[in-house]
């Protein structure tokens, strides 16, 4: 075994495989139905294949552009670079590019199809609001995503659900199968089911990355306190004055409580309590129990 640094968790691995298996089974059923209906889907699959290809090969550029992240040199951000260098050395990874996102909300992401071509980005808010050991935990989590090749896994997993969503759009032009439900309905069902499976897969990848970060830093408690700070209510309290905000009425129209009532089924990340509980378990395994 070449890389052991990020550890293994058999329950997690088996659930990940089950999710992928269910996704695959769904697609097989979907294509069987499509073939039966005699629809010509070849062109669309080729188009989607091209999309997935582009997504796979440009994921880093897309993510950087859409988040407004700027790649920084070691001269521009020496402390951040030193931290990434140290963590890469510990986890036997080639050093990714390092980027900073100019927002106050503490957050981070990693992207790129292979460890060599990846980028790790942190927000200014993360750098300002968290302590160095906590930032280290967050970056280790992002590096674990890179080590686990999560961009490749998720691109692959979402390819077929993209096929299904495209079929919903063009479903009308495909004609109907002689018996049974129309194509667009099948596509819709496939899309929704695969959507939830992808989200489930994404949540498992998050647990895996948390585990990786805990093992590499040897300090799950740092990631735990970082997660708590990032999710903390404090970042939700505005810093403006009520009288300043009265002009911006749109601010009050968005029903933010809708966001919060969404169940965990809809989330790409597992709930905070579950992530903390698993990290506490890992801490226990490592012989340094943490109080939750």
């Amino acid at each position, binding site marked *: 075994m070449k890389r052991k640094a990020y550890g293994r968790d058999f329950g997690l691995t088996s659930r990940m495989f089950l999710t992928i298996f269910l996704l695959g089974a769904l697609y097989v059923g979907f294509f069987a139905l499509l073939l039966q209906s005699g629809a010509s889907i070849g062109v669309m699959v080729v188009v989607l294949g091209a999309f997935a290809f582009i997504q796979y090969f440009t994921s880093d550029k897309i993510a950087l552009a859409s988040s407004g992240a700027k790649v920084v040199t070691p001269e521009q951000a020496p402390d951040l670079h030193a931290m990434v260098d140290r963590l890469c050395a510990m986890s036997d990874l080639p050093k990714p590019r390092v980027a900073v996102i100019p927002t106050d909300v503490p957050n981070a992401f990693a992207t790129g199809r292979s460890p060599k071509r990846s980028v790790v980005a942190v927000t200014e808010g993360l750098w300002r609001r968290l302590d160095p050991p906590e930032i280290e935990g967050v970056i280790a989590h992002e590096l674990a995503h890179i080590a686990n090749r999560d961009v490749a896994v998720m691109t692959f997993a979402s390819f077929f659900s993209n096929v299904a969503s495209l079929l919903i759009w063009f479903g009308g032009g495909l004609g109907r199968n002689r018996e049974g439900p129309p194509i667009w309905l099948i596509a819709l069902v496939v899309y929704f089911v695969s959507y939830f499976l992808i989200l489930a897969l994404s949540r498992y990848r998050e647990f895996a990355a948390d585990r990786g970060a805990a093992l590499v830093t040897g300090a799950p408690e740092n990631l735990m306190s970082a997660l708590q700070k990032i999710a903390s209510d404090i970042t939700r*309290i505005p810093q403006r*004055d*009520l*009288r*300043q905000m009265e002009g911006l009425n749109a601010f009050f129209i968005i029903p933010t409580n809708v966001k919060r009532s969404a169940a965990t089924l809809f989330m790409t990340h597992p709930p905070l309590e579950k992530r903390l509980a698993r990290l506490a378990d890992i801490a226990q395994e490592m012989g340094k129990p943490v109080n939750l």
Partner: protein
Amino acid sequence: MGLTDVLFGGRKRLKGAKLDKLFALSTAQVTLQAELGLKPAGVAAVVSKPLSAGEFARAEQEIDELLGVVAQTSGSEVRRRNDPYGYQWLVVRDRDFEDLVTGVHLVASELSNRGFGEQLLAALFAFEGREHPTYLIYGFKRGTFWPFVPTGEGQERDNPAELRLKTELEKELPIEPELERWLGLFDAPLD
């Protein structure tokens, strides 16, 4: 609300301002003082938005009249203040907390009755006895309270203290659940 019925009889209130939840504060007073060590500072205010030029002349007279009514009906002292944002503050003073809450409610109701309900922004109640002066803000639009603890340094707030107050007061007061709406009122002209 029994009390409002007694005070204002059958008079119609305009839509757009929720006033009745204000009285929850009278009930919460015991908890505030005995358990949280928050002593009422004896001062509160009703903040309303600036009026258009056309409304202004009418408002001047109406508000003078209003202050007269309030002075007669309650023993509270009411003054008019303005702030740099151009907002109007009707500052109510009363050493008895229950009377203070009633005074604020009366001012807000009178403004509402005279057609300024849309202008009502918030009520602010001041407390002392902690490290920083502590305020409870009541938003008339949604009828909810939220804590506001400015540290006195620029627009800085003691967020942890505010969140503690949230959990401590949630059972007694309708606390605004969406923290994104906990906007502050810095440099209140309460003196």
